[in-house]
């Protein structure tokens, strides 16, 4: 592993370890006597420290060491869980988070006033123990360790282990230990029974060695000792064999700033993939290779059909690699919810459900902000103060529930609270003040809820930092629409409110109806399609000489000519093949006049930023209008346009 790779691994694992620390601290706060949680916290802090030591981030080591000290005292019950302990730990955690970000962006130092405050906070808990930063001078370290039994099964080997150690500094000697190898009759040849005694000179010190070793060795099978140089002169380690170790390119761990600078922008986006999914994929690729080889001998329909099936399976499985459980995203809200409730003097019981529901990683990432907005709304607007709740006969702690489930090829996410509910009269009053409702109009309950998603809409009487500026729900709605999702509201005064979000499972594939418009093929996402109408000459009416409407069984629906809004050349709209595709958004139903319907397909979405040039070349004078979501590779290999029905609606009918 190169130094850059070690730094990248540090950042990736640090994110996960800090997230785990946060969850466990939250758990510890609610169940103070939780030895398992304390053990997990200690191990996470210990691993963080080791990882940081391995790449020479000494200030990061110092703070994690201080946190580890506190957790060690909790573990040994020489300190008990209390609010100051929890607060100091959270403070340190926040500083570690920002420090990790600073290191990622190449900051030369992470020592800030917040850092010092967090360090002192932890030190104060340990009776003022002063925590010195580890020296970056090279030190001699002796380690004796025994690998985990699954060492070989994990694809590891003593040679690669030694190569990785060589990255820490100069390996002076290494000796493989055989004293735990059983006789042949008891030997499980695939399990590892070996140990290693190693001496090296490293600036990472014993913590760096621990950090490296813990990846392959259990703590109880690891002994690490820093040696004074003079001790080495007098007492050589027993039965140490000088050996050749694979190239030791770096004499010592690099200086933190240099490492950080190199690491800046080097961390790539990663997805953890279930090994079972990869195995399935490997099997499928194997079958595909066999089928392709059959093609050279046999081009019968049977082989072609087999290839088609394999191609579809392959696509499904590759798409599946992007699917991740939403639980990790959900858990990220626990801490901000706790902090917000504390800030507002409210009590909340935040629960989640359906965390195993899988969603495209891109959808999860893009969903976090909208969900955060809505959850903040629940706490700040939805939930009453504890005293008010008690007076109403409700428990002092308000309940906020976040759930996910798969329903009919979509993911349904619900955020519900048991708070005061939405005062529709107040929303309507505000909507009238803002001119969103025409005089004399009596909107339905659903329409009233819709006004809350209008830009700048707020019923809050006082503007606070948390909410009340009307920046929130309109942003939420736009973000969800960009994900081809929708949101609706259900509320009962005094009982609570539920926000219901529907999302596609993935953004990478769209099920669509392909239609021909002028020279182009356009894919209309199927979730937006309501029905297909064959227009007759007298079913299309023009009002005020401009707006066209289609009479659908007595209901007049606005109609747009797709070539007009997409600025495509006119086709033959009067041919017998012309059709009106009725589509629907949350706001309205309307018709799209197209030249003809080609059929249904699954289109793989290609982002428009990369394919725009291609589209521009393909369609002469094509100007990217709102209403185009991306490009798709069609079955015949040509490039088609994927329609964004919400964007098209805004273009054709205005923003509201």
């Amino acid at each position: 592993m190169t130094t850059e790779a070690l730094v990248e691994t540090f950042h990736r694992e640090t994110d996960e370890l800090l997230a785990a620390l946060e969850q466990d601290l939250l758990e510890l706060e609610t169940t103070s006597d939780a030895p398992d949680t304390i053990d997990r916290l200690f191990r996470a802090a210990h691993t963080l420290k080791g990882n940081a030591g391995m790449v020479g981030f000494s200030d990061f080591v110092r703070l994690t060491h201080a946190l580890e000290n506190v957790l060690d005292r909790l573990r040994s019950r020489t300190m008990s869980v209390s609010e100051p302990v929890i607060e100091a730990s959270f403070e340190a955690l926040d500083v570690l988070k920002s420090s990790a970000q600073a290191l990622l962006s190449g900051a030369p130092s992470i020592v800030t006033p917040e850092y010092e405050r967090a360090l002192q906070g932890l030190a104060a808990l340990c009776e003022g123990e002063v925590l010195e930063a580890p020296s970056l001078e090279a030190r001699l370290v002796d380690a004796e360790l025994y690998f985990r039994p699954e060492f070989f099964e994990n694809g590891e080997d003593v040679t690669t282990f030694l190569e990785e150690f060589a990255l820490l500094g100069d390996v002076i000697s290494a000796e493989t230990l055989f004293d735990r190898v059983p006789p042949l009759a008891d030997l499980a040849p695939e399990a590892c029974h070996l140990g290693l005694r190693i001496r090296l000179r490293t600036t990472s010190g014993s913590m760096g060695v621990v950090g490296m070793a813990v990846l392959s060795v259990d703590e109880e099978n690891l002994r690490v000792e820093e040696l004074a140089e003079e001790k080495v002169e007098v007492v050589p380690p027993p039965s140490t064999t000088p050996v050749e170790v694979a190239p030791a390119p770096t004499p010592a761990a690099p200086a933190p700033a240099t490492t950080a600078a190199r690491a800046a922008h080097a961390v790539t986006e990663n997805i953890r993939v279930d090994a079972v999914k990869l195995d399935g994929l490997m099997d499928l690729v194997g079958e595909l290779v066999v089928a392709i080889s059959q093609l050279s001998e046999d081009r019968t329909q049977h082989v072609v059909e087999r290839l088609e099936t394999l191609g579809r399976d392959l696509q499904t499985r590759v798409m599946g690699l992007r699917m991740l459980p939403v639980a990790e995203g959900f858990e990220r809200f626990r801490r901000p919810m706790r902090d917000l409730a504390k800030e507002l003097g409210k009590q909340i019981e935040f629960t989640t459900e359906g965390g195993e529901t899988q969603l495209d990683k891109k959808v999860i990432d893009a969903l976090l902000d909208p969900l955060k907005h809505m959850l903040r709304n629940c706490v700040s607007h939805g939930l009453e103060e504890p005293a008010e709740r008690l007076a109403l006969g409700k428990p002092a702690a308000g309940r906020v529930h976040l759930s996910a489930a798969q329903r009919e090829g979509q993911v349904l996410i619900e955020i519900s609270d048991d708070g005061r509910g939405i005062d529709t009269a107040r929303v309507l009053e505000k909507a009238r003040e803002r001119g969103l409702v025409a005089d004399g109009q009596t909107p339905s309950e659903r329409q009233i809820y819709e006004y809350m998603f209008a830009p700048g809409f707020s019923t809050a009487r006082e503007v606070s930092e948390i909410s009340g500026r009307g920046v929130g729900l309109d942003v939420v709605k736009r973000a969800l629409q960009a994900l081809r999702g929708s949101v609706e509201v259900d509320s009962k005064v005094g009982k609570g409110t539920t926000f219901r979000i529907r999302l596609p499972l993935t953004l990478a594939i769209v099920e669509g109806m392909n239609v021909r418009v002028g020279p182009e093929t356009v894919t209309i996402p199927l979730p937006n399609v309501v029905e297909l109408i064959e227009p007759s000459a007298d079913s299309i009416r023009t009002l005020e000489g401009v707006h066209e409407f289609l009479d659908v069984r007595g209901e007049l629906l606005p109609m747009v000519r797709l070539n007009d809004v997409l600025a495509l050349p006119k086709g033959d709209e009067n041919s017998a093949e012309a059709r009106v595709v009725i589509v629907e958004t949350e706001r309205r139903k309307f018709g799209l006049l197209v030249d003809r319907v080609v059929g249904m397909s699954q289109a793989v979405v290609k982002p428009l930023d990369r394919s725009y040039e291609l589209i521009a070349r393909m369609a002469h004078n094509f100007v990217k209008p709102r209403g185009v979501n991306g490009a798709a590779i069609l079955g015949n290999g040509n490039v088609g346009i994927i329609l964004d029905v919400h964007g098209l609606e805004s273009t054709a009918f205005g923003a509201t």
Partner: protein
Amino acid sequence: MIGLEKLGNTLVLAGTLSGADVLEAHALLLAECGSPDAASLDLSGVEAIDTRGVQLIASFLRTREGNLVSAVSAPVEAFISRIGALSLLGTQP
């Protein structure tokens, strides 16, 4: 692919002592080590070895305490030297 032959009181291993071949070698050695006159191990025909192969040799030596590795091939010697396992050959630093 691993082969085992018994020449006098020496077990002669040949082929590769790495990867999945270690399982086969384990089975072969297990069958032979019951023989009371199997005293030493000749590894001069072993073309490749990995850490699991080295562990297997250590296990054999443990089983037949006092037995020796009588000969090794160059690849085996290079590998066990690399991982600091020369003590298996009775070689002192």
